[in-house]
């Protein structure tokens, strides 16, 4: 580790008389800018063209439904919390409130389970179902602590980022809306983000490397992934 001085021989005055008269310092700068004039456009034409967020992007939350890709211990969790075993298409949430406990702003969540109103001899007697799951995203800072705490990978982050509404009420999502958001997301990009046991797979990529909009932002010379990194021009 060394200490290096910069500016010791800094050149304060424009160097020579010739440079001064012919504005060579400006010329050099202009040369750079003029070069840029002939480069391809690097900006994205939003909203007609959008960059696809990375798989890890933490956008609006969703609540996943049972679709056969649960973790192996899912049923054990359901039993432990005395939840009615969910059918396919019903929510994975077991109302354990781990997400709320992990969250720095627990007021965001309102999670309630209710006992099923069934006769004594019914197999579901004494079991509960999720009744209310509201999230007030106006208070959320999208830190991701809740999703890392959920034992059933029920609450997830999707790639939706445009959540502006006209009233604060618009940021409050209930469980139907959250489920819908998650379903759409899984149908759209589930394969990219989760493996068949709802884990983040090793093959999860930094971002979709075939995205043309993103390629533009990388000077139309996007980096290629993979071990065979070849020098690019």
């Amino acid at each position: 580790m060394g200490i290096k001085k910069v500016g010791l021989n800094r050149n304060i005055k424009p160097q020579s008389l010739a440079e001064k008269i012919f504005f060579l310092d400006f010329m050099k700068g202009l040369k750079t800018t003029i070069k840029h004039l002939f480069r391809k456009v690097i900006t994205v034409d939003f909203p007609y063209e959008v960059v696809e967020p990375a798989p890890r992007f933490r956008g609006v939350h969703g609540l996943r439904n049972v679709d056969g890709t649960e973790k192996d211990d899912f049923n054990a969790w359901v039993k432990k919390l005395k939840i009615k075993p969910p059918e396919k298409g019903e929510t994975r949430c077991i109302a354990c409130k781990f997400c709320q406990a992990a969250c720095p702003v627990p007021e965001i969540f309102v999670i309630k389970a209710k006992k099923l109103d069934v006769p004594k001899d019914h197999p579901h007697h004494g079991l509960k179902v999720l009744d209310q799951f509201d999230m007030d995203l106006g208070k959320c800072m999208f830190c991701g602590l809740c999703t890392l705490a959920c034992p059933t990978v029920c609450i997830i982050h999707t790639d939706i980022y445009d959540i502006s509404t006209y009233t604060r009420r618009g940021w409050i999502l209930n469980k139907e809306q959250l489920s819908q958001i998650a379903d759409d997301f899984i149908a759209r990009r589930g394969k990219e983000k989760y493996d068949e046991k709802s884990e983040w797979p090793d093959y999860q990529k930094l971002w979709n490397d075939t995205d043309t909009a993103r390629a533009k932002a990388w000077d139309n010379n996007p980096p290629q992934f993979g071990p065979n990194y070849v020098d690019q021009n």
Partner: protein
Amino acid sequence: MQNHLCWIDEEKLKEIKNKFPEISIEKFPNATFIYISKERLKDLLKSLKDEFGFKMFIDFTCVDYPESENRFLGVYFLINPKDKQRVGVKCWATNETLPTITDLWKGAKWAEREAYDMFGVRFEGHENLVRMFLWEGYPYYPLRKDFPREGYKTEYLPSLNERNKDYPAHNYDPNHTPLPTLEDLERTQKARIKKKAQMVLNWGPLHPGTHGTIWFIFDMEGEEIKQCDIILGQLHRGIEKLAEELTYTQFIPYTDRMDYISALCSQVAYVNTVEKLLKVEPPPKAKWIRTMMCELQRINSHLLWLGTYALDIGALTIFLYTFREREKLMDIIEGIAGIRLNSSYIRIGGVSKDLPEGALDVIRHFIKDFPEKLKEYETILTKNRVWIRRNVNIGVITEEDVYQYGLTGVVARASGVPYDIRALQPTDAYDKVDFEIPLGTVGDCYDRYLVRMEEMRQSLNIIKQCVEELEKLKDDKYLATENPYVLPTLEEVYLSIESMVKDFNLRIYGEQAPEEEIYLSGENPRGELGFYVVSKGDGKPYRIKIRSGAFYNLQIFTELIKGRTVADAVVLLGSLDPVVGETDR
């Protein structure tokens, strides 16, 4: 002489004890404090400064102990730059007053005002003891332990609260905490500055040139600024108060929101402090990832600075070019951490997730690409005569100023003070990488520009070394989950019942830190970002004081601008590069 910054040694302590027999010494593994009575405080500080070489002022704060007899404890941090030692001095504020130390260190002026604002401790002899963040006439002192976190909701503001029948749980309270009225603001402004010259000019709080919400008041004679003061607090969110009711992990997202331009550096500085406190050692891979991410963030932050700084001076093209490069860095950070700005990626004991596929390839691509772009910026700027006229010999900061005001980061290094926490107190992998510390010679805006440009090159160099190393560590652990204080990964929770219990306990009760105090800092692009954590053995910190580099660096602005014009104010502010999220906290 040791190379690394450590706490005051025995020899010096003995000498001090000989001189001041009444002191008592409090030692923690990562902090050493000297207790002194209020009467002798000034003498001790003076002798520390003049005889023992502790001439650099770092921080001052108070801690509230409601059950103790004197209630408020003042804590001073000083540095001896020659022997590379730190010391803490503690003094009880009897009758809620302390003597001012602004005659010893000018930099204490704002720190004392902040302590007055937050705790109500008065400083005898302070030249203008007004509030720092809140407005004049605000009746409470928010960091006192008896002040509730959500404040006193006394204003009825129904317009903001459309009552919502569908989701009764999410009703908003129609009562709010009070906001300053126009009269309050006028009173605040009047209290800061006594008009002496021709006219008072307000600059900000919402002006693009102020890089955030800072409110400047200039007292002007013609074109010349005679006096200046700054009103901060428009972005004050009371992060230190919030920290007292959160667990150590839950506080990580809040550190992002201080210096939002270099969120990763803030997280690393905070997490390192907590790890030292909890005695957690992250695995080597996590350390390399952190160092790499920090340096990426540093380039990102310097690019934003360069772009906006050039924009202020009139070079619009540079702004477009730097944002092009910054966008790529944002892409990388988004892909790895999940969010572009407030990434919340670092965890106690490592990082939250391993690097995804392709991350290193992309970073390598960037390393290859970037030096050419840097050259482009330099061709346009460095020798440009407008650039030189606007920068050279503007806002000269001397070495003495650095110690007086506690200036850190680029501002200190441009004045020739080799104060870089990365080299002085290496955390993570900084002791394993090679880099140079660029230093300036004059200490003007032009030097600060040169130093920042060179720092980007050095950061690039560090990233290169990290990428090489991370390639070898491909399959290593990224989180030290075997440690009892580290939250396990989901896979582990699923595999073992112990992990599940640990996970549950850590989330509900927090990390039970030992009863200890610690001060540790990290090198943020804006200077030294220090965290002073007081733990009482609970899962939540008793007090966290954030020593913000930008806050102290901004303070010298009021001195430097005297006798200059408003046009220079823009340049000077840009070259000090404060971020309001961090100054206000």
